[in-house]
């Protein structure tokens, strides 16, 4: 088959076939364009198989699993403290926030409550990881639609927040700092002041993003009216977080179903936008980042003194039962359904990740948009691959 004499013949035949095929495709009936698995817009390995008519998308079908790590199965063979190290790696940008709902669910089953100081510090770290996570989105959205500079600003300023997280937890991305019944350690001296100055810088960053992107007419032309998701559709698909609030649904788990962190102690507001398009998703996230810096500032003022660990046995055994706790993570509602059988490790953990639901709306929202809009919508829905594939 691969003899050299055959090669020329083959080349000729394939050239003929290529001609014929391209001629057929030029009447733009259905061209399949694979966006991904390795494509800059998918920041990870997500593949979107698009049926195109010219530059218009007829059907878009996300295909994933390139990064499926089977965390639900892995959690079943690990003890509770070991699980948190895995859970760090689900949404790798907002890692501390991942630990919190899992730990809260386990605490709920054990009926222990972390002391106030631990809860307070948890909330600060939670909001810091939200800022670190969403700041990257704020820049990345720019790069998705062609602006080169914002993403560098985002990396520059996110670094400061990550340093603050690292100074407390020892890990930039995988803190593994939350424990059943409290925290691993207390905050070091001088950290509060540093964090305050970082928060000031983050607000400047938000202003810069406002000037660079939100106010930019080209950005608005690209994002306004693109990928509109009405609220009832968003609810049916289980969209959460800023994606839901950008559709005008005023729902924030931090305010409405606080599972025991310190958000009710401070003054803040939930931002919503009535449009439901890509621009409003960006706008809501920008406002939320600002709000998060305000929350952190207020929390820093009032950290109560006291222990950081409740009384828990050294070998943690969680009593039999089931609990579902979800929190408002940077990407949306992240929840863990833990089934325990009174053992050292969970019997079954169902991980409800925000990106999985958020991205499941893609086939619905991407009908009839242009190829560049695919990127805008993907960017504005904001997913983390680890959060989809788990």
């Amino acid at each position, binding site marked *: 088959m691969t003899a050299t004499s055959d090669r020329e013949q083959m080349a000729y035949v*394939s*050239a003929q076939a*290529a001609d014929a095929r*391209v001629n057929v495709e030029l009447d733009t009936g259905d*061209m399949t*364009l694979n*966006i991904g698995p390795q*494509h*800059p*817009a998918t920041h990870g390995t997500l593949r979107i198989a698009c049926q195109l008519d010219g*530059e218009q998308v007829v059907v878009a079908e996300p295909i994933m699993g390139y990064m499926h790590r089977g965390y639900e199965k892995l959690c079943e063979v690990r003890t509770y403290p070991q699980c948190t190290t895995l859970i760090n790696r689900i949404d790798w940008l907002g890692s501390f926030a991942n630990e919190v709902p899992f730990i809260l669910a386990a605490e709920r089953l054990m009926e222990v409550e972390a002391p106030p100081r631990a809860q307070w510090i948890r909330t600060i770290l939670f909001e810091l990881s939200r800022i670190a996570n969403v700041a990257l989105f704020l820049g990345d959205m*720019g*790069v*998705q*639609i*062609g*602006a*080169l*500079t914002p993403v*560098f*600003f985002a990396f*520059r300023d996110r670094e400061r927040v990550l340093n603050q997280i690292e100074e407390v937890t020892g890990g930039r991305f995988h803190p593994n700092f939350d424990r059943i019944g409290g925290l691993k350690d207390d905050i070091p001296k001088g950290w509060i002041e540093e964090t305050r100055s970082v928060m000031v810088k983050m607000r400047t960053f938000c202003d810069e993003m406002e000037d*660079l*992107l939100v106010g*930019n007419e*080209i*950005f608005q*032309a*690209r994002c306004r009216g693109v990928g509109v998701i009405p609220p009832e559709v968003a609810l049916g698909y289980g969209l959460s977080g800023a994606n839901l609030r950008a559709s005008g649904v005023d729902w924030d788990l931090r305010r409405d179903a606080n599972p025991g962190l310190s958000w009710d102690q401070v003054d803040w507001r939930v931002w919503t936008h009535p449009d439901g398009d890509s621009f409003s998703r960006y706008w809501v996230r920008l406002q939320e980042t600002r709000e998060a810096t305000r929350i952190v500032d207020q929390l820093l003022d009032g950290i109560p003194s006291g222990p950081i660990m409740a009384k828990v046995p050294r070998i943690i055994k969680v009593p039999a039962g089931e609990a579902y706790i979800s929190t408002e993570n940077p990407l949306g509602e992240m929840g863990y359904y833990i089934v325990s059988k009174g053992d050292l490790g969970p019997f079954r953990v169902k991980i409800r990740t925000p990106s999985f639901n958020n991205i499941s709306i893609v086939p619905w929202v991407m009908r009839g948009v*242009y*190829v*560049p*809009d*695919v*990127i805008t919508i993907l960017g504005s829905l904001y997913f983390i691959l680890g959060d989809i594939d788990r």
Partner: protein
Amino acid sequence: MTTLLALPYWQETGIKLGLALAVIPTTSLILVYLFLFKMMAFMQSRLGPNDTGPYGTLQLIAEAIKFLQKEDIHPEQADRRVFRMAPVVVLASTFLLYVVLPAGPDAVVENLDTGVFYAMAVSSLSVLGILMAGWASANKYALLGGLRAAGQLIAYELPLILAVMGVVIQAETLNLQGIVEAQATGEIFGFGAIGNPFILTQFLAFLIFMIAAQAELTQTPFDMPVAETELVGGFHIEYTGFRFLLFFMAEFGTAFAFAALASVMFLGGWWIPGFDVDDNILNVLGPGVMLAKILLVAFFIFWVRFTYPRLREDQLQKFAWKVLIPLSLANIVLTGIFKVVF
């Protein structure tokens, strides 16, 4: 045409062509180093390439060597002959542009009487090369990129030419040297101390020219044919090694050439405003003055490139046909009226 050295025609032309050929890599090197490496880095709080040579100046040469070492890869389904030709066609368009760009009263390869016309005609050759590349790569991203480029470049050729028309009407010549002369000797309503750089009297045309040039050069906000984050490089997605280097050089070479065109037509080219100097001195100083003006124009091109997001293809077409072309037509009418009245 007076020449400094009396050489036979073919020798003189040979030397000049050789110079023009050497100028393309040099100019793209300058632009890439100054703007793509350094200015962009500073705008993003970085340092940029810093290790190769003093302040990273040799980085691009290192990159070029790297590109040259790479294996020459063709996609299996590619139309090989066209695939190989495409970068050469694009580069040829750039090269031909340099032929008419004046850097001094006599420092020009060929002083064509229809210089502007020639420059516009030659610059649109690159569309052909891009289409060829997009078609021959046998890649859907490349095809989309190529088609976008074709649509976009054709749409922007028009405002580009129409904007130049204003200048031509005012200078009463198609000769680029003549346009420089007209700016040097011109007066703005009787005030002639700084001559008449057409950027003052033809500001609208200058704006239109710059916007259209941005699109012509496929720079952000009009870089849909390349569009790294959606088409992953568009028409040159399948090119590697020295073929990619040719595209790369052509991109920046053309940017330099367009900046040169803009400075010739709107900023007075090699002429120093307010100074009346001898031609021979200008032949020496001219390239320097030209370079300064070109870098100024290029600075704006790249500043915009590093700041703005990219438009969508349909928005770009709308902008070209509904805004730029009517505006440039209005500019021609206005220029004509003023020309007749004054």
